C-alpha cells in the first residue's frame, strides 16, 4: 500500500491534531472555539471519505450510473454539522457573557480573577 494512496486520512489526522493543539495551547476563548471547530471538521472529512467509492459518482438515482458513493455517512455528517454549529454558537455566546462578566476572554486572567474572588471570600 502506497503511503500517499490514503492521503485523505493523513489530512484528517493533520487537521484533527492541529485543532486539538489549538484547544489545549491557546488561552484565548475564541481561539479555543476555532480550534474546536477545526477538530470537529476533521471528523466530518473522515466520515465523508469513508463513504467515497473510487470511480463512483454522487448518490443520485440515474440509469446511467451504477457505482456511487454511500449516501448514509453524508446524511449522518449533516446531522453532526448541525450539532457542531449549535455547539460553536453556544460557546461563542458563553464567551460573550464571560467577556461581560470578567472583562476579558483570556483564560489565565479569568483564573486569576477567580482565585482572587475565592481568596476574598474566605
Amino acid at each position: 500500500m502506497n503511503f500517499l494512496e490514503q492521503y485523505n486520512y493523513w489530512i484528517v489526522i493533520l487537521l484533527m491534531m492541529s485543532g486539538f493543539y489549538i484547544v489545549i495551547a491557546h488561552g484565548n476563548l475564541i481561539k479555543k472555539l476555532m480550534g474546536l471547530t477545526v477538530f470537529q471538521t476533521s471528523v466530518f472529512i473522515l466520515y465523508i471519505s469513508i463513504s467515497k467509492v473510487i470511480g463512483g459518482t454522487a448518490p443520485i438515482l440515474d440509469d446511467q450510473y451504477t457505482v456511487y458513493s454511500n449516501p448514509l455517512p453524508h446524511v449522518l455528517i449533516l446531522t453532526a454539522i448541525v450539532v457542531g454549529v449549535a455547539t460553536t454558537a453556544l460557546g461563542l455566546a458563553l464567551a460573550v457573557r464571560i467577556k461581560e462578566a470578567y472583562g476579558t476572554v483570556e483564560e489565565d486572567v479569568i483564573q486569576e480573577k477567580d482565585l482572587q474572588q475565592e481568596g476574598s471570600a474566605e
Partner: protein
Amino acid sequence: MIQHLPILQVIIPLLAAPICFILKEARLVRWFVLIANVMAFVISIMLLQQVNLHGTLVYSLGGWEAPVGIEYRIDELNAYLLILVTSISTITLMAAGKSLTKEIPESKITYFYIAYMLCLTGLLGIVTTGDAFNVFVFLEISSLASYTMIAMGNDRRSLWASYQYLIMGTIGATFILIGIGLMYMMTGTLNMYDLAERLPEVEHTKTVFTAFAFFLVGVCLKLALFPLHLWLPNAYAYAPSIATVFLAATATKVAIYVLLRFIFSVYGFEFSFSHLPLTEILVSLGLLGVIAASIVAIYQTNIKRLFAYSSVSQIGYMILGIGIGSKTGLTATMLHLFNHALMKSAIFLALAGVVYRVGSVNIKAFAGLGKQMPWTMAAIVVGGLSLIGVPLTVGFVSKWYLVLALLESNWWPIAVLVMIGSLLAIAYIWRLVEVAYFKPALQNNQSYKEAPLAILIPAWIFVIANIYFGIDTSFTVGVSEKTAELLFGGAR
C-alpha cells in the same frame, strides 16, 4: 397507543420544550413541565410492564425496519433506567419552583425549564435508542442543554465552568463520533444489534480497536472518570441547585449506561476483557478516582464542590465494579448506580434548601445550622452516612456487593483500598457535621428558618428511599442481578 410507548417516552419531553416557549409565564410553565414529567414517568412504568409481559420491545421509527431505519430497543436494563431518570427528574421538579425563584432572575426561569426538558429528552433518548449514531445525537442534545443550565447560575464562575464543560464535553462527544464512524466503516451498520453480530468477524483489525479506544475515552470524559473529571466539580458547584441535583443524579448514570451497553452488548465481554487490558485500566483508574477525589473533597470549602468531588469518587466505585469483570462486580455497579442517584439527589436537594435560606454553601455559613435547620441538615447527614456506607443505608448495600465481588476474585488488597476510600468519606462528611452541629452560630448571624416544605419534602422522599432500600434490599438487588445477567448474556 401501547406499541408507540418507546417513542412517546422521548417525544413528550421534546415537544414540551417548545410549548414552554409559547406559554411564557413562569408559573404556568412550571406546572406544565411537571405534568409532562409525570407523564414521562407513567410511560416509563408502562414500558416496564410491557417488557415484563412481552420481553424486549422493538420499535421501528417511522415504520422503517432496521437496519434502514432507526430502531428503539427496550429491555429490562433500559426500562429500569428510564424509571430511575424520570422519577428523579419529577421529584426534583417539585422543588424547582421555590428554589429557582431565589437563584435565577424571573425572566430566565422559563428558559431554564426549556433547557431542563431538552436535557431530559436527551437522557431518555440515549437510554431508549438502539442506534449508535442516535446515541451521539441525543448525547449532544442533553449536553448542550446542560451547558445552558449550568451557565444560568448566579455566580459569574458558572459561565466559566459551563465554558470548560463545553470544551471538554465536545471533545468527548467528537471522540465518540470518531469511534462510531470507525465502527460503521468496518461493519456497514449503525444498529447496535447488528453491530454486535458483525463486529466479531472483524474484531482483530486495528480499526475496530481504535474505534473502541476512541469510544471508551469519549464516554469516560462524559461520565467524569478520574482523570477526565476536571469539568465536573466547578460545573456542579456553580450551577443552579436544581440543575446540580438533576445532573448529578442522572447525567453521569446515563453515561455509565452507554459504557455498559457498548462494552457488554455491542462489543461483547469476550472482546472487551480478553483482547484489551480493560480490567487493569478500569480498576486502576477507578481506584485512583476513589482515593484521589475523596482526598481533594476533604479540603474543599464550598460544600457543593465537596459533594461534586465525592461524586467523582463514587463514579470510581462504579467503574471499579465494571473492571472486575464478574457478574457480582457488575451487580455492584448497577446497585451503586441506582443508590448513588438516591444519595446525591437527597444531599443536593437539601443543599438547595440551604442556598434558599442562607444564600451560601461556604462551610463557614453552616455554623450552627444543625440547630436552626434540623430537618435539612438531617437529610444531608443521612445522605452522607449513605455515602460512607453505614449499615441500614443504601450505600452499605452497594459497597457490600463491591467488596464481595473483589473478595470473590481474591483481590483483597483492592478491597482494603475500597475500605480506605470509605474512611476518607467519613473525613469529609465529618467536617461538615462538626461545623453544623458543634460550632455555635456566628454572632452576627440572624437565625435561619427551616428550608421551605416544597424543597424539604422532595429531599426527604429521597432520604426515606435511602433508608428503605437500605433495609429492604430485595428489589434493588434483584433488579441489579437481573440486569447484570442480561448484560453478560452478550447480544441481547
